[in-house]
């Protein structure tokens, strides 16, 4: 149902939200020895969600992106085994937040269109 109304944007919003959590985890663990930074391959996760959620089956919220969570390759290895590079994570976080905002405005636009059609003004 929601797939028919929002198209790609509903799924994209969920993946964006999840990616935000993963990036925040990286920032939180910037000083944890041995922590490996992770990131979601957005395109692959979105593809997966769309193909699996298309037949109306309920998709587990996190199963789709879990398979597409990859470890980040560090620019330079550190002695304590931590691969978080704060500048990179912050940049990815900002980019992701912006994309979330964009997707959200698409969803809102869709809702506005529908509301206007229902009201028949």
């Amino acid at each position, binding site marked *: 149902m929601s797939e028919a109304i929002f198209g790609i944007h509903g799924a994209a*919003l969920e993946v964006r939200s999840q990616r*935000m959590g993963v990036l925040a*985890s990286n920032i*939180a663990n*910037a*000083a944890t*020895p041995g922590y490996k930074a992770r990131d979601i391959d957005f395109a692959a996760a979105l593809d997966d969600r769309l193909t699996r959620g298309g037949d109306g089956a309920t998709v587990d919220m996190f199963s789709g992106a879990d398979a597409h969570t990859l470890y980040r390759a560090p620019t330079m290895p550190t002695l304590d085994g931590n691969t978080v590079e704060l500048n990179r994570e912050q940049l990815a976080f900002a980019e992701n*937040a912006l994309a979330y905002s964009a997707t*959200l405005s698409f969803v809102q636009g869709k809702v506005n269109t529908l509301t206007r059609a229902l009201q028949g003004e």
Partner: protein
Amino acid sequence: MPEARPMTMFSLTQKAMSAQMVRMNAATSNLANAGSVASSEAEAYRPIRAVFTTELDRASGLASVRSDGLMRSETAPTKRYDPGHPLADADGHVWEAPVDESAEMVEIMESARQYQNMVQALQTAKQLMLETLRSK
């Protein structure tokens, strides 16, 4: 320690901030004890460090951080000859705490920076959540 409720952005940030607070308190304690002396090697103050471990929440895919207690460093105290000191032992030696002030300052600065990062990330996330909530 497994948690009953799933981890959210808020609990994740709260845990990360607590961990940074423990780290900053440890560094401040070290700074406060810099230059303190004792009359034997065993009694001298040794710097403490917070140890961080990751806490992964499988249900939500979020990874928070936990401070797994404090670790005392193995650095040997500095032996100084000061026979006039009231705490000096029979040979006239006092044992000074092996605190590296600049290292502790750097530790505090790094901790503050990471704390700031976390706050900023939460602010952005919260703002986006509010925007989503307010959309009609």
